[in-house]
């Protein structure tokens, strides 16, 4: 592809690019294609899209800006990156919204054609930032993207609007050259995707090529960059988002358990995509049920669990609130259900498209009376696969509701996923009770190890029994108002959850097993915490990290691990919910680092706190 004189190429360890434009500009597509190409090159990657709240806010306005950030490198990449090295701004609004994140001195590639008086006004600019010197601190590269795209497509004789809509491919081509990525994968993709619309296919192919060649030729880009393969574990990979991984995990669990999956849900951002994904898997026997509301979703799921299905419901925080009463019923009747909560920023409707991890209290404690459940939380997008399976395994083994706490950051973020061999997946057999020659069936008898009651399915001869939300007599399951029975049952239900601790991995410490400071995390903070701690360790600080993927019960050794460190820092995207649970239980003065901005932690934020704590205390 490089027929002209080669420009010099410089090697980089990692790059963070953010594509930003109007929602109509196709930035998600550009970002995704760039990511796919990058993945195929063997870089490690992490991505995060930033959707606007409106479906289609008026073109050119600030609320209409859509962004996509990608971090890729020849070393391990743990987050989508703190601040972009390169910002591609397709219009003034995109610049306005995103500039504050761009690293000082970073590269800004702007589509200068879009900086019209009207667009500047819509974005609230008094003067044109491309001209007024306000961007002096950055490496500004103005490209007339629209004009060049139209030029490139002139010969195709397309309507103006169609041609113009290809400008994202032009930009993609440009970036491909700049970071030395081949455009062939995208050309192939265009072929597949638009095969039936040859005009569009040709327009897009032409546009990406035009961008590529333009970059190669123009003096605007005196050199380009190379990011070598990352030392990734060998294997077959695919890129996966948290919601995709969760959906796959539930299907996998269903197959592993040889039990059909029933997914009952009411659409809600950012959980709806799990429903959409699962609705595609009908040939896997998956039944999806779009209920009239969240209450119907969770109660239908309870009915399905009663009938013997692997029963999962998915929603976000406000939906969980509505499901609380029914989850209490599942606790009482001891049926296995999984509640996937893709957390978003709240309270109330809050900021639906933004991330947060503030529904931990709701999961652990948000029901009437003593109503214990299990809670797991994936650490990365790909980990949603493993933890979805775990949630199903625990629910069916212990006969209780299990929360799967993902969040908007994991749900929409993507990373490479090493596709596991089927043999690596946990196996879990499901046993259903069957009649046992003459003996009286006791629906509330218990497994000695797990304390689970038998999962006895309607339709099984001889096991006819009644369950319900009124307190049950142990063993017989009859309605009971007996005071001692109630006390015993309350304790049994709690003990059942506690026993799970024997069945989950111990908490692993990364770094020294003891020391000045442990940075503890849970859920989607894994990436930034790990990166920050690795950096601090690199600086020679005596700091370790550990990550909770099980929140109820906690891993058995949590107390002991906490005891081995002088101080414990717990960064959370909430006001200290996990911290409070830990303080109450272990009476350890855990320090919080709390961020509630609808955005994930930056590595630098955590690193700064580590520095602060270790300066105040002793320095390694």
């Amino acid at each position, binding site marked *: 592809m490089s027929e002209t004189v080669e420009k010099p190429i410089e090697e980089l360890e990692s790059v963070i690019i953010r594509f930003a434009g109007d929602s109509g500009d196709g930035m998600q597509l550009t970002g995704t294609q760039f990511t796919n190409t990058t993945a195929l090159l063997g870089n490690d990657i992490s991505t995060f899209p930033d959707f606007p709240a409106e479906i289609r806010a008026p073109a050119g306005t600030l609320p209409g800006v859509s962004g996509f950030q990608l971090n890729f490198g020849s070393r391990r990449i743990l987050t989508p990156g703190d601040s972009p090295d390169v910002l591609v701004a397709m219009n003034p609004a995109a610049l306005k919204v995103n500039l504050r994140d761009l690293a000082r001195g970073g590269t800004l590639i702007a589509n200068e054609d879009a900086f019209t008086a009207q667009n500047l006004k819509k974005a609230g600019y008094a003067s044109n930032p491309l001209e007024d010197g306000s961007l002096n601190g950055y490496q500004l590269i103005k490209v007339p993207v629209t004009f060049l795209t139209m030029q490139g497509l002139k010969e195709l004789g397309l309507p103006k609007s169609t041609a113009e809509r290809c400008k994202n491919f032009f930009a993609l081509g440009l970036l491909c050259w700049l970071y030395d990525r081949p455009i062939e994968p995208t050309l192939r993709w265009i072929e597949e995707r638009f095969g039936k619309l040859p005009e569009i296919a040709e327009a897009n192919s032409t546009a990406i090529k035009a961008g590529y060649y333009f970059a190669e030729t123009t003096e605007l880009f005196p050199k380009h960059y190379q990011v070598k393969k990352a030392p990734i574990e060998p294997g077959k990979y695919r890129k996966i988002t948290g919601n995709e991984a969760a959906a796959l995990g539930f299907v996998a669990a269903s197959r592993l358990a040889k039990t059909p999956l029933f997914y009952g849900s009411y659409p809600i951002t950012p959980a709806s995509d799990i429903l959409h994904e699962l609705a595609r898997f*009908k040939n*896997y026997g998956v039944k999806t049920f779009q209920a009239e509301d969240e209450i119907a979703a969770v109660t239908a799921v309870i009915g399905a669990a009663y009938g013997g299905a692997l029963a999962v419901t998915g929603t976000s925080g406000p939906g969980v609130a509505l499901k609380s009463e029914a989850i209490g019923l599942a606790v009482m009747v001891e049926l296995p259900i999984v509640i996937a909560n893709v957390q978003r920023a709240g309270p109330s409707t809050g900021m639906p498209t933004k991330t947060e991890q503030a529904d931990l209290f709701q999961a652990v404690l948000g029901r009437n009376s003593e109503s214990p459940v299990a809670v797991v939380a994936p650490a990365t997008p790909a980990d949603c696969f493993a933890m979805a399976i775990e949630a199903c395994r625990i629910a069916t083994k212990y006969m209780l509701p299990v929360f799967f706490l993902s969040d908007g950051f994991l749900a929409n973020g993507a990373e490479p996923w090493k596709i596991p061999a089927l043999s690596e997946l946990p196996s879990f057999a499901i046993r259903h009770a069957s009649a046992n020659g003459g003996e009286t069936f006791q629906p509330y008898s218990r497994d000695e190890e797990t304390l689970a009651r038998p999962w006895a399915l309607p339709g099984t001869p001889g096991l006819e029994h*009644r369950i319900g939300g*009124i307190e049950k007599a142990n063993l017989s399951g009859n309605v009971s108002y007996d005071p001692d029975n109630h006390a015993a049952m309350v304790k049994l239900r709690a003990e059942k959850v506690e026993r799970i601790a024997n069945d989950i991995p111990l908490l692993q410490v990364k770094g020294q097993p003891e020391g000045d400071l442990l940075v503890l995390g849970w859920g989607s903070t894994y990436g930034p915490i790990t990166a920050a701690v690795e950096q601090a360790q690199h600086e020679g600080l005596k700091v370790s990290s550990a990550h909770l993927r099980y929140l109820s019960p906690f891993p058995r050794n949590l107390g002991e691990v906490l005891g081995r460190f002088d101080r414990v820092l717990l960064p959370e995207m909430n006001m200290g919910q996990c911290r409070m649970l830990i303080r109450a239980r272990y009476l350890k003065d855990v320090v919080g680092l709390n961020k509630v901005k609808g955005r994930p932690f930056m590595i630098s934020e955590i690193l700064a706190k580590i520095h602060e704590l270790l300066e105040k205390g002793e320095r390694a």
Partner: protein
Amino acid sequence: MNESNGDKERGQTEVLSLTRKDFASDQEVRWCPGCGDYSILAQVQKVLPTFHLPREKYVFISGIGCSSRFPYYMKTYGFHTIHGRAPAVASGLKCVRPDLSVWVITGDGDALSIGGNHFIHLMRRNIDLNVLLFNNRIYGLTKGQYSPTSELGKKTKSTPMGSLEQPLNPVAVALAAGATFVARTIDTEIKHLQQMLERAQQHKGTSFVEIYQNCPVFNDGAWESLTDKATRSDHVLTLEHGKPLVFGKENEKGIRLHGLRPEVVALDAVAKDDLLSHDEKLDDTTLAYMLSRFDMPQLPVPIGVFRAVEKPTYENLMQRQIDVAIETQGEGDLEALLHEGDTWVVQ
């Protein structure tokens, strides 16, 4: 709540020979003396053996209320869920277990107050469930507040000066929501009640049966004019498919349509052919809807089947999509699924 399971291996003959007693659980029935629920329980226990299904195939699912204690008294599978949600629990069950005969037991408060949303959506989904609504026009279990079917001006503990709302008509709401089978009967009309239960079981799709039920403690006599021997035949109109609408002690009265306005006529003055005839099989629900609105004192109150039309059931459509998907895409293979889409190999 336990059963011995000695009958595990019974064959078809035994199934055929089940009796009413086989459907009575060991739990003491705890409704108030004289409660209409007793009769409904008895009729259900009487008709089930006639369906020749083994006991384990039945599931009774209820919400909360006096009526909702029903499942405890049935020696079948039973699930006493939470207030208002039985239709949704039953829907989930039936979606994954179309082999079971699933019955929803609910009250006027349970189905139409807190459970109103699930009720209308169940009706339009047409999942093959049998819904028995025990309508006593009061909240029994919480000791006597007015319910959505209580008459306007009802004086109760929560409305000492009278309630302020028009009652809901369960049959009309079910029809408007698209129910394929809708019937009404009365706790004391033993034979008719049995017939309606049979019809409900025969119908494939959601079968909704409203049962007028007396609560002697908090709303005694709510249906008295329909059950009292003296007034019954003048106040109750028994619907029969294909038959003209007649009622009265000696079937001496009939209903004639005047445009869209129904009127009571004396049969000696009018030919039977001029009477309005019942047709439960109409796709258009206008007639059924009109009948559902009949009320005293102008018109007699209809009991019987208002509508019974066959439509595909939700759970069958659901299964059909799965079958088609498997036919066209092949039975899903987990390995293939995991490797779906763009992949790359790192050596």
